[in-house]
């Protein structure tokens, strides 16, 4: 049975959530449930119990802390569609359907850790940090490196993702994804850009087993921004850096090509924003 009461905890604070998790070490954490529930129905995941974060008010909403924006892990994606960081907003806007966005949380997206998930390249480009909380305290880690394989993260046993922290320094940022449909699709490939003080930072989704960025690509992207390199240079650099999967949706060759196109498009948008291009 899915919802037998003793196996189901509905804590109201982070502290209660951590104790509930400690009492049920095999339980699955559920935030919006938009990943967990289909997985259970499709029998690709089993659960010995559930700890729901739905009532943990402290995990919802955004606040400022110095020069960082703190986004609670339980904040629904729908609340981020107008976020100041353009990449975050664009990734939120193109995630699922209105119904899904209302339930889906940013934390669930991050912890799902699948390379095609919307938030991942956006957070990598934005150089986000993650706040992880456990019985023994709180630690903050870079998002870069948090995902180690598809679906696998450095989140510890009994640990919760409590917030995503983003630098608030002004920048241009954006996110794009490609798929076969015009809405409600998993990204065939995706990319995000941050351009700040003439320097470009790009990140890619479904370009390898984990969200991917590369210094070599950013050097060429920055050169493209100020006219020292051409689009073909950036495409070549991207093609070298990425290692996309091959599946029934698209070939690896298509993905490699499309990632270069997206990178170029994003840099062109950054150029326009900076008043450099047309």
């Amino acid at each position, binding site marked *: 049975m899915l919802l037998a009461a003793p196996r189901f905890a509905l804590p109201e604070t982070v502290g209660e959530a951590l104790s509930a998790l400690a009492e049920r070490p095999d339980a699955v954490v559920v935030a919006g449930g938009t990943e967990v529930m289909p997985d259970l129905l*499709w029998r690709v995941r089993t659960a010995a119990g559930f700890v729901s974060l739905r009532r943990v008010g402290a995990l919802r909403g955004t606040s400022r802390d110095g020069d960082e924006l703190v986004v609670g892990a339980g904040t629904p994606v729908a609340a981020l569609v107008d976020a100041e960081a353009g990449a975050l907003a664009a990734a939120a806007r193109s995630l699922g359907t209105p119904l899904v966005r209302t339930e889906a949380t940013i934390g669930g997206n991050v912890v799902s850790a699948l390379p095609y998930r919307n938030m991942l390249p956006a957070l990598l480009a934005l150089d986000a940090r993650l706040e992880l909380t456990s019985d023994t305290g709180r630690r903050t880690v870079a998002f870069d490196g948090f995902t180690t394989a598809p679906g696998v993260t450095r989140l510890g046993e009994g640990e919760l993702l409590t917030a995503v922290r983003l630098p608030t320094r002004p920048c241009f940022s954006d996110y794009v994804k490609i798929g076969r*449909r*015009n809405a409600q699709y998993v990204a*065939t490939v995706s990319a995000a850009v941050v351009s700040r003080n003439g320097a470009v930072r790009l990140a890619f989704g479904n370009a390898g087993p984990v969200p991917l960025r590369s210094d070599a690509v950013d050097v060429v992207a920055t050169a493209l921004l100020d006219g020292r390199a051409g689009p073909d240079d950036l495409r070549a650099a991207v093609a070298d850096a990425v290692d996309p999967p091959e599946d029934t949706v698209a070939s690896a060759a*298509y993905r490699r090509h*499309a990632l270069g*196109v997206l990178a170029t498009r994003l840099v062109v948008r950054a150029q326009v924003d900076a008043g450099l291009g047309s």
Partner: protein
Amino acid sequence: MTELLEPRAMGQGLVRRDGVAKVRGTATYAFETPAERPAHCALVQATVARGRVTAIDTAAAEALDGVLAVVTVFTAERLASVEDAELAALQTAEVAFRGQVVGLVLAETSETAREAADLVEVTYDEQPHDSELRADRDDLYTPEKVNPGFETDTAEGDVAAAMATAHATVDHTYSTATYHNNPLEPHATTALWDPAGDGFLTLWDSTQGVHPSRATVCQVLGLPQDHVQVVAPHVGGGFGSKGTPHVNVVLAAMAARVLPGRAVKLALTRQQMFSLAGYRTPTIQHVQVAADAEGRLSAIAIDVVEQTSKVKEFAEQTGVPTRMMYASPNRRTTHRLAALDLPVNSWMRAPGECPGMFGPEVALDELAHDLGIDPVELRIRNEPEVDPETGKPWSSRHLVECLREGAERFGWTGRDPRPGVRREGGWLVGTGVASSVYPTMRMADSTALIRFEAGRYAVEIGAADIGTGTWTTLPQIAADALDVPVDDVEVRIGDTRYPIASVAGGSSGLNTWGSAVVEAARAFRGEYGTDPADGDEMETGVDQAAQDEDHAAYAFGAQFVEARVDADTGEIRVPRHLGVFAAGRIVNPRTARSQFVGAMTMGLSMALHENSLLDPRSGHVVNHDLAEYHISVNADVGDLQAHWLDEHDPWVNAMGTKGIGEIGITGAAAAVANAVWHATGVRVRDLPITLDALLPSLP
């Protein structure tokens, strides 16, 4: 020739009578049928594609709290008829396809039933299976007939000779993918077996026809018709997959008989629908077309290779539209099948015409380009005066008018024929056209009862509303037949306690049921005049003898599409899609539009998105859910328009209707493919058209 009804209520865009109930959620669908303490049924499915079940261990499932019964291929009741092997539920230990039902669990809740089903342990003697369709297989065979009874092969003249001497020829192979019907409402049944006396079975079922469904269930279970009632007031779509009962209905009935007196609920999951509820075969179409310099066809041929399940033969009539669509002295159509270890394929919206209007309609586009003739004009030049297949005159045929009006509305005139040369921003832009066709059918069996009750007319017939609008359109026909305001008519449908009605299939529903209603109304007036007494009633069937046999009756249409392809990524968008149809009298423009645009969207979906991916190693459709089996979404549809001509056809039936449920899907995918070619210069002959198929050759 029939005397056509004077349209007064017919032709009005009345709102759906069941609309408010549906929007409020009070319309009861099969699974929601109120029942006291219902038991829930879950299925155990084979995990091998071929073999034999050697043992089933049900101990762990039975030990689970709340489990009421576990039934397997070794313990199930023996059915009266196993003639239809698809419906011979739990009668054999042989496994013929992956996903075949080998057991069922009954439990207090659906969660318990599913958990218990997971705990049933099945052991197999697995055997190698064969699930790959290829045109070069050496074991393709010739079926006796193709659905529903057409000749398998036809030939006239000498296609090869015409191809050898023609000014221009097209000779290519086209393919369509496997498609699953995927109505929004899954296949679901609430079943109750009342053991009193000889027993009575009630099935609240999601079906396209309560009477045909009852007939099948009675035969399989060996029950007399008056001991079975099938009820289906509202159906959330079927697209053919609820046109014949599938094994889930038989299983629900068997499950109910395990728990006499207690209602049992069985709904297929979306994933189970991919192996148990039918689907459309993939097709491989070798198309040959020959023409003179003016574009007049001297030959047209289609040789189709497709599949059937070994369990039960279904031969899709893919080549049939090529037999009648265009004039040509030399013609050939053939169908060959590969019999595979796969689930049973069956009807899906416009079986035959839907895949069969892809290859030939793209081939004509290729021919038009080769000859430098506009593709609209090419079709007009090949308009046959009579049905080329039978020599019969058309009951009415307005394809040319549809093409002309569509071209006008779409802004086709002055179109630059060159492919791959128009750019707007980063988009390559093109337009395409294709014809649509669907035969006009009327079934033999339907009876309507009309009774004068408390100042109003009640019309009873076991017809179905599968989202098509029958609740609303049948009263419009009855009102005109009785010459009363539509508000004075109440219809009662969707239940075998009403007089017999044919299936909602083959776009024949309203043609057939409406004919019965008109007959009954005329007989009623003949008997009781215009001032009947309360309780006066009349029951009359369709007059099969009056059915016109001297004309070829079809609905026609033309579809126009604008496609945009991103020059860098190959992403495809369809901002405009316009259809013009000549489909007889339109009874209700509001519900009709919804049929046309729904079917056109389904055709767009076939062109760009839908594709059931079979893994030949496991005999399993891997993308068996709506997350991965992509259907076009709202954002994929741009300016979508359906128009129709006021067509007056005196030969088809008393209403002059031709049926509109299926024609919209025919030709749609070809129009999209032709537009994508015109945009890019890349001719994709295999559906769906994907980004990576276009990309390597983009200009």
